[in-house]
């Protein structure tokens, strides 16, 4: 209910009636202070995200993920008794706008915490605002490892509630190595988008693939640009290298373009393909000629973890928004679950108190590998979320069998990785 009233208010924000209404409201609070005190004050949470341009889906599905949980929470009494009021704004994918909006949300709109639905450079810009203003900030879309893993970036009041490339890569490396050994795949090629996420995730995957299967060799690397419309020259280059297997960190529309174009060259009959971002409904439901047997990590899929809670959540989301959730949706929903759990534990919705109890907090969550996810204390990033790999089929459930990753192994190797990077 609070959300509707907020949008109603902001729509009138600039006309005279609104000013009068505000003055009226002001007069009322002066005249009748008990009215204001009777209801718990709503807590505003600001959310800068990308709602326009090529990745508008990131913002819309993130907002959906947040709202589905916020509505549940408000119906159940709100965050430590205070109803949540979300204020979501479009940064258009520009970091200076993300920083500006984050500051405005806190300084002008009175938001007490920030859910940062920005990707890549935008999330680093919001991190600087959180550093400056000391406001509680939960990053929900940025998978760039350094955001939380690098002690130079880390701040006590910022948390990441999103996948991290290194986790996917260790699980993926292990899975791929087993197949490489079984099928004798020694010559590998990579094709990933040329930006930080693509480069880091690919380098990490290769490291762990070689760790588990030492005789694997990378014979070709291709780095198309992010949002490149045409992959012809990349595809022909890969075909000439004649690898036995291909790894790709392409995602979303780039991945589907790549698949459609590679299909023309019958690429998928010539090599095993490992595309970490394939098993996401955004890509699965869109590709018309999905080749059988692409290996993929899970992003969001309602059949993994194969629990009733997860399936129910996916169906409820689909019923409400007429489309399946994205990877961003579950990450944002989890952020609200974490905040709620933290507020219960702290007995308050105060951002500073939440930041104190969030480290190490475990919350029941349909997306957890064992039904829970944990905000790891040492580096403020979530762990224990469902992670697994499987092969695709062209129809639902798209990835019939998902082999779950082993978090114990992930933790061990991640610790070594952190040392090698100088992060620990």
């Amino acid at each position, binding site marked *: 209910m609070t959300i509707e009233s907020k949008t109603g208010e902001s729509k009138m924000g600039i006309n005279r009636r609104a000013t009068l209404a505000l003055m009226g409201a002001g007069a009322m609070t002066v005249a009748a202070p008990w009215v204001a005190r009777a209801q718990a004050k709503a807590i505003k949470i600001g959310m800068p995200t990308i709602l326009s341009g*090529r990745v508008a889906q990131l*913002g819309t599905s993130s907002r959906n993920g947040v709202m589905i949980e916020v509505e549940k929470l408000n119906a159940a009494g709100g965050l430590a008794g205070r109803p949540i009021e979300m204020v979501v704004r479009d940064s258009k994918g520009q970091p200076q706008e993300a920083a500006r909006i984050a500051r405005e949300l806190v300084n002008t709109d009175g938001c007490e915490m920030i859910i940062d639905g920005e990707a890549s450079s935008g999330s680093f810009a919001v991190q600087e605002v959180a550093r400056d203003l000391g406001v509680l900030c939960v990053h929900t879309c940025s998978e760039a490892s350094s955001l939380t893993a690098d002690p130079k970036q880390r701040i006590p009041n910022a948390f990441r509630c999103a996948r991290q490339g290194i986790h996917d890569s260790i699980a993926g490396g292990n899975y791929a190595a087993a197949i490489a050994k079984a099928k004798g795949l020694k010559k590998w090629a990579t094709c990933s988008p040329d930006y930080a996420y693509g480069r880091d995730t690919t380098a990490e995957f290769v490291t762990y693939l070689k760790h588990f299967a030492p005789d694997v060799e990378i014979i070709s690397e291709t780095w198309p640009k992010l949002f490149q*419309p045409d992959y*012809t*020259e990349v595809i022909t280059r890969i075909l*000439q290298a004649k690898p036995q297997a291909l790894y790709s960190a392409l995602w979303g529309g780039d991945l*589907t373009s790549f698949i459609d*174009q590679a299909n023309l060259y019958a690429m998928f009959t010539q090599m095993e393909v490992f595309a970490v971002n394939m098993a996401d409904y955004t890509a699965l439901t869109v590709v*018309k000629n999905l080749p059988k047997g692409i290996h993929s990590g899970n992003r969001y899929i309602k059949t993994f973890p194969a629990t009733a809670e997860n399936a129910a959540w996916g169906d409820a989301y689909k019923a409400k928004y007429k489309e399946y959730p994205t990877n961003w949706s579950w990450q944002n929903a989890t952020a609200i679950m974490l905040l709620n759990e933290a507020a219960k534990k702290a007995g308050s919705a105060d951002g500073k108190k939440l930041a104190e109890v969030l480290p190490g907090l475990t919350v029941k969550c349909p997306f957890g590998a064992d039904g829970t996810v944990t905000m790891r204390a040492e580096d403020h990033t979530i762990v224990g979320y469902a992670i697994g790999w499987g092969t695709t089929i062209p129809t639902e459930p798209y990835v019939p069998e998902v082999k779950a990753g082993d978090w114990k192994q992930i933790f061990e190797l991640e610790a070594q990785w952190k040392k090698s990077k100088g992060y620990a």
Partner: protein
Amino acid sequence: MDFDALTGCLVSSACIVTQTTSGLIIGMLLFLVAVGLTLIFGVLKIVNFSHGAFYMFGAYFALSGYQLTGSFIVALLCGSLGAAAIGLIFERFFISRVYGRDVLMQLLVCYAFVLIFDDAVKLIWGPEFKSMGMPAAFQVPPLFIAGGVVPPFYLLLVAVALAVAALLGLGLARTRLGKVIRAAAHNPAMVSALGVNTALIYGAVFALGCALAGLAGALAAPVRSLTPGMGFSVLIESFIVTVIGGMGSILGALIGALLLGLVRSFGSIGFPLFTDGLMYLFMVIVLVARPTGLFGKDLA
């Protein structure tokens, strides 16, 4: 930089054939967009900054047409005619008001429509990306020509683009309408004084340019994902093509598009991480050496 790979490719015939054909494929689709851009500039003296949006409209109209009828031919028609119709409305009601005005004003009007069109597509078709899927007729294995791999769908694409180039070239050079268009490009006041309706010519040329961009979008729809704002990267590339080839020159657009395709396909081997930079560098060099582009100043 990887010179070994580049020299390695240049001594292998399979590599040369494959990369040259992929350069051709990239280039010909670019040509379809760029030739509309250059035609509009040549006749109307307008740098149509919103040209990418018509490529986008072509793709989305083709998608809707294909979903309704299941016919790729209908999809192509929907794409090009839909883009042409929007182009005509755009030209008659908005662009025609800025003829002869400052180039910045023209750009600004186009920029306004880039913003509006992108948001309109987001409202109509939704923010999520779409894919049309390959028509069944083209779901066939690729051909092998001289050791290189060539998908049949791309043969169609190249054939259509070449046909368009030939028709445009011949049409402008030989037909009466072509002569009038060339005359209008050269001296609109004179043509108008001779009793020719220049407004009609301008509208027709603008719609034709948009139809070509729409055709390119429709042809690309089976292999490229559709998103609001998808026209932008294509606009930038076709813009480079027209500048290199010479604004207003159809032959220039053809040569420029092929050159750029080759720069991309061989650049991806020699300079895999700087392919885009290479394109801009190429553009700077051409502009400095020959500001009007390789084939500037003459239409067709």
